[in-house]
């Protein structure tokens, strides 16, 4: 704090009488007293990530109570999957999470393969790993644009979202779709990598590295960004278990939990990656951690491109998909998305249709319990920044 503000606020005492009284851990808010204002942020609001809303009670511009409302994107996926055959489910599962559909595809197909006992070929495993890492970097690029945009720095979004577009072009090359790929199917992947793909991908990695160094100079060294993000939304290490926090949010508080390393899937045990953690737990730490993870993803992509074998099968033999019956059983497959542990719990009863498919997204707790807790005592102008710094994604909450 500068000298002027110190002298000005030296004798300043917050008027705690204005604050609501606490009873049984809940604030008692009397709206008729005209001390508080109740407003809705969202669903029609530019500062909300996706289509969700916060019902907040304000005292001045300080939030005293917050409640998340979700369900604006509920499509009943789990009910629809009960009516679809296993192979028909693949068009549906990728639509659960819009910015990062590949994790869903991988988890669902890995669950189907495990239950039916299919082993996929080596090359398919490598391509799947590449695909997952590419979707991670694309999602991170969009996130950092949102984080800067929520604090009024629109230029970062202009740069990174257009860079993400070039990654989407690569996806289009291998799968034919920009957003939804439906590339990972049971037994492997749909198509081989096209000719010259590796060179183009390496080129793009270099380009993205260059962009990221620009982002570091403008975003992480900006004094306004620093002063607004530091100390915002602190997640303490005790909260991590209590609230089921995963991913970069947990790692920013010093918890060593990364699914890629704790329980390596696909080819992650053959790659060189180390656990990135930080202490501090505030929004700025999380932003820095995610920035490092972007570099880690780019590093992994170069490693994978070097290691992908040229020849080999990309698809294992699977039975006739129209009458495909999967033996009874249940399993839980998890993978690391940008937001953390992303899991699919699939229960089969031996028929053509799954009995139950449940998708556990990381935002499920981040956007409801955690956000409601962290939003209290912050300013309303920081709420959008806090929401983005938790990297909430509404479609995976309500499915």
């Amino acid at each position: 704090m500068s000298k002027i503000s110190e002298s000005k606020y030296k004798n300043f005492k917050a008027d705690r009488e204005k604050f609501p009284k606490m009873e049984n851990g809940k604030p008692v808010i009397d709206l008729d007293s005209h001390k508080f204002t109740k407003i809705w942020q969202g669903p029609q609001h530019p500062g909300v990530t996706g289509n969700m809303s916060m019902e907040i009670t304000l005292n001045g511009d300080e939030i005293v109570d917050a409640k998340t409302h979700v369900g604006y994107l509920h499509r009943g996926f789990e009910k629809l999957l009960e009516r679809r055959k296993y192979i028909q489910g693949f068009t549906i599962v990728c639509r659960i999470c819009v910015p990062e559909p590949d994790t869903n595809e991988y988890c669902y197909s890995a669950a189907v393969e495990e239950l039916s006992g299919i082993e996929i070929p080596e090359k398919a495993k490598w391509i799947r790993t590449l695909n997952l890492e590419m979707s991670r970097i694309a999602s991170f690029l969009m996130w950092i644009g949102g984080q800067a945009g929520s604090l009024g720095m629109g230029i970062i979004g202009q740069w990174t979202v257009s860079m993400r577009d070039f990654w989407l072009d690569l996806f289009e090359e291998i799968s034919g779709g920009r957003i939804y790929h439906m590339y990972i199917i049971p037994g492997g992947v749909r198509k081989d990598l096209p000719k010259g793909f590796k060179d183009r991908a390496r080129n793009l990695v270099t380009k993205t590295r260059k962009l990221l160094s620009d982002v570091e100079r403008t975003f992480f060294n900006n004094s306004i960004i620093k002063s607004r993000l530091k100390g915002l939304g602190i997640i303490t290490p005790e909260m991590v278990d209590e609230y089921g926090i995963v991913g970069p949010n947990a790692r920013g508080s010093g918890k060593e939990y990364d699914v890629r390393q704790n329980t390596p899937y696909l080819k992650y045990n053959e790659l060189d990656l180390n656990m990135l953690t930080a202490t501090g737990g505030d929004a700025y730490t999380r932003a820095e951690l995610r920035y490092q993870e972007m570099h880690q993803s780019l590093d992994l992509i170069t490693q994978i491109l070097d290691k992908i074998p040229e020849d080999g099968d990309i698809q294992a033999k699977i039975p006739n998909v129209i009458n495909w019956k999967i033996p009874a059983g249940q399993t839980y497959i998890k993978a690391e998305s940008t937001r953390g542990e992303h899991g699919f719990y699939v229960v089969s009863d031996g028929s053509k249709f799954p009995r139950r498919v449940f998708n556990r997204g990381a935002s499920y707790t981040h956007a409801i319990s955690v956000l409601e807790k962290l939003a209290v005592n912050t300013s309303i102008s920081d709420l959008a920044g806090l929401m983005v710094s938790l990297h909430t994604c509404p479609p995976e909450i309500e499915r």
Partner: protein
Amino acid sequence: MDKKNIKEIEKEMKLANKGLSEKEKTLFSDARPKTVRPLNKYLEKFLNWARAESLWILGFGTGCGAIELRPLMTARYDMFRYGIAPRPTPRQSCVFVIGGYASMKTIKRIVRSYEQMQGPKFVIALGSCTINGGMYYDSYNTINRIDHYIPVDIYIAGCMPRPESLIAGFDKLKEKIKANECDGMNKYVENFDWYKKNQKRVIKDWNMPDYNW
């Protein structure tokens, strides 16, 4: 419709100022929406040209279609060069982009946002799920046809529609506006009771005024 009939219908309707004191009643309008007819043919032509070249869209990402609006807004596709800009509130915007499927909770907000928008207003619906339900045709929580609840000017098919097709859709909308074919607002007013009946059929807990502008 004669005057008596309208009054009878209004009695059944829930008005914005219902239950308020006489003093507060004047704060909210309870007039039915009216059809707007152009005053002058030549002036209207000029106005249509002006409207078509500055389309301000409402920043309400109602579904997954909103994800392709981001690339459209940023440097690569850059919709600002077509005179299209996102606006934060319904009061300032004239194009409503319905981004894909609308769940029951969202359709309620869509109706409210649409009614709050000032005329002339246009609607673009993205994705196959707004046309006939798409892959969510049997879902219990998404509507199948958006044009039964609000009037639609342009449909852009696909799942997701690419940014290029979005630009093509906006171009088509411009052509239609210039040719004076986008009359969705008047259509909504003329078939007001039909639209309300449809909306009330899916929105089970109707706890808002029937029209609120």
